[in-house]
């Protein structure tokens, strides 16, 4: 009746990587530590390690993405894996083939790992449940549910700047409701024991029971920013800006945009984060996005080390070798 643990094997190792919700603090910390080990590679002349030589990683992108796809591709190449990226957005599933049929075809290509990006919540979990034995699934973002490597790279960046999580006040601004990044960040912050997590945004973009995600709702941005150590903007999708969930991008920026004046309410050493791509002048003022407190580009770089850590650990667990 009960389903097996979706991402851990019998010995507690990662067999898939689908969601941060449900992983222990030890596991998250172990991944972050492993990522720290990979981070210096980027500074070297030779940036590859042979950990996944001979293994095949397939990027299955059922939804458009440039950043995440590129980061996964590069991370896999740095681990010496063979990488192929399959654009499925305009492909067979769009022509009516069922997701399971597509999956069977891709399994026949004899890959070791699928990186899955899909527009439906729960898609990575669904694929992990139905995939052939011996293929690991890594969630590259599923609908509005989770984007666990993004959540981890955010934690990696925060930890580098702030160290311990327990005294931190973290503020997430904007579209919590539709954001898989927010869900993964909130799950990780809760597991890692962040001191206080506040979410702020119009009620159309913040679910009424957001406390279930371990965050406190604050209606007013100025109030939310006071004493913050970490300020995280979230992307507002264009289709939600024009009268649907928000009357206009202008009104949104006036009330929930991160400007330099507002940022001054946070601690002087607060860092500013954003998963990108940013809508300048909507979620965040250009001078803040480019300002000295911004770590937005560091987040992108951290994404490489974190994804190398995840891929090597998941495939390492499959062969029985230690990661």
């Amino acid at each position, binding site marked *: 009746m009960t389903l097996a643990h979706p991402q851990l094997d019998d010995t507690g190792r990662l067999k898939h990587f689908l969601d941060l919700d449900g992983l222990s603090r030890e596991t998250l910390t172990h991944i972050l530590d492993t990522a720290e080990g990979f981070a210096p590679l980027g500074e070297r002349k030779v940036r590859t390690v042979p950990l996944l030589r001979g293994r095949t990683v397939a990027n299955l992108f059922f939804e458009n993405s440039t950043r995440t796809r590129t980061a996964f591709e590069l991370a896999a190449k740095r681990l010496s894996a063979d990488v192929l990226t399959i654009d499925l957005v305009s492909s067979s599933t769009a022509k009516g083939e069922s997701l399971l049929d597509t999956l069977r075809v891709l399994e026949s290509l004899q890959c070791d790992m699928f990186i899955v990006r899909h527009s439906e919540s729960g898609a990575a979990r669904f694929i992990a449940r139905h995939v052939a034995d011996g293929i690991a699934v890594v969630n590259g973002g599923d609908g509005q549910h989770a984007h666990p490597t993004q959540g981890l790279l955010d934690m990696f960046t925060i930890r580098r700047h702030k160290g311990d999580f327990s005294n931190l006040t973290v503020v997430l601004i904007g579209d919590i409701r539709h954001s898989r990044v927010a869900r993964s960040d909130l799950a990780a912050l809760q597991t890692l024991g962040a001191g206080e997590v506040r979410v702020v945004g119009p009620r159309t973009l913040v*679910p009424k029971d957001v406390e279930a995600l371990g965050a406190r709702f604050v209606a007013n941005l100025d109030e939310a920013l006071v004493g913050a150590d970490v300020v995280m903007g979230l992307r507002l999708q264009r289709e939600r800006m024009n009268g649907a969930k928000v009357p206009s991008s202008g009104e949104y920026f006036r009330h929930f945009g991160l400007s330099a004046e507002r940022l001054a309410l946070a601690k002087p050493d607060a860092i500013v984060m954003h998963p990108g791509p940013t809508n300048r002048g909507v979620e965040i003022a250009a001078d803040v996005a480019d300002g000295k407190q911004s770590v937005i580009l560091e987040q992108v770089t951290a994404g490489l080390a974190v994804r190398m850590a995840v891929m090597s650990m998941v495939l390492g667990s499959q062969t029985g070798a230690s990661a």
Partner: protein
Amino acid sequence: MSDLLTLPGFTDLYARLREPGPSRRGNLQSETRAAYAAGFTRVCAAPDTDPAMDSTATVELVQHHAATADAASVLPMAALTIGLDGDRLTELATLQALGCVAASQADQPIADTRLLYDAMAYAASFDFPLIMRARDSRLGINGCVHEGTMATRLGLPGVPAASETIALARLLELLRETGGQLHVSRLSTARAVQMISEARDAGLSVTADVGIAHLYFTEDDIGGFDSRYASSVPFRTSADREALREGVRQGVIDAICSDHAPLDNDAALAPFPVVEPGLSMFDRFMPLWLALPSYCDIDFDRALNAVTRAPEAILKLAPSTDTIQVDATATADTWWSRGRNSPLVDTWQLADGTALSGKVVCIERQSDDVTLAL
């Protein structure tokens, strides 16, 4: 050898028998046979077939195929609007004369309040019962789970409780104007139960039912995107479930239906938000019904009334002369429905470990002078 229970044949107020339509999901043959396994000797067939039951030709086809299926009797429900489009009324009086026991809009809401008003008034003039689900045409229409903590946690589009209560308030206010008999199909929220109770106190002629699964499951069962719990009428909170049980205990909810919705594997195997909602209920209806006293604290007489006298009264049918014999401790090996989309498909246990049992072993149809050992 265990004792057998002898009971009157049950009457189901809402089941999808899938014919006409793609037979991989079931047909009248397979689903009326599965209805027997549930204890139903009469089943109201939902009109959301393909094509919908909006014409004499379709209703006659259903009647003809049901007769040759030779299992549970099929009571067709007329589609309230053509193609269930919510725009144009069907020939309700003609379909009633043909043998339809009620008119229903199935799971499709009617956006146009004026049309709904006319539909209710027209049905009232022929004393034709309406079986209507309370569902707003916009609010939560793209949702796939109750808008609550599970929706928030999993990032799934939600169906607010207000989607049901707003639609129910509209139905009740129109009923006040039009008169007639309204049966509200498959309640899911605590507030809706309270509204039915208040409407009845105010003298309105309204009855209600609940799908049996909603007395057992909540949003928490969806857990890790378990699409076997994807239901068109969403599973809501444990407080809602308790209010539904209390509604049955108090008689505010008159009847318990199967809300049977068999699906083929392809429709049931997909990521949660795109899976077609519905649970194949017939093959575990009897054990769930038998567990109502012990698991849901609903006394036996009330539970029996909710599947016999109450639905018969709503449909203005004479009491069933059929009898069924049930072995309450047996479990059946056969899964009769073509749809295997059920969390109970390979098990006789609820998620909390509670064991289920109960098997219909014999059906006696006085009307047809037939005895069938199962």
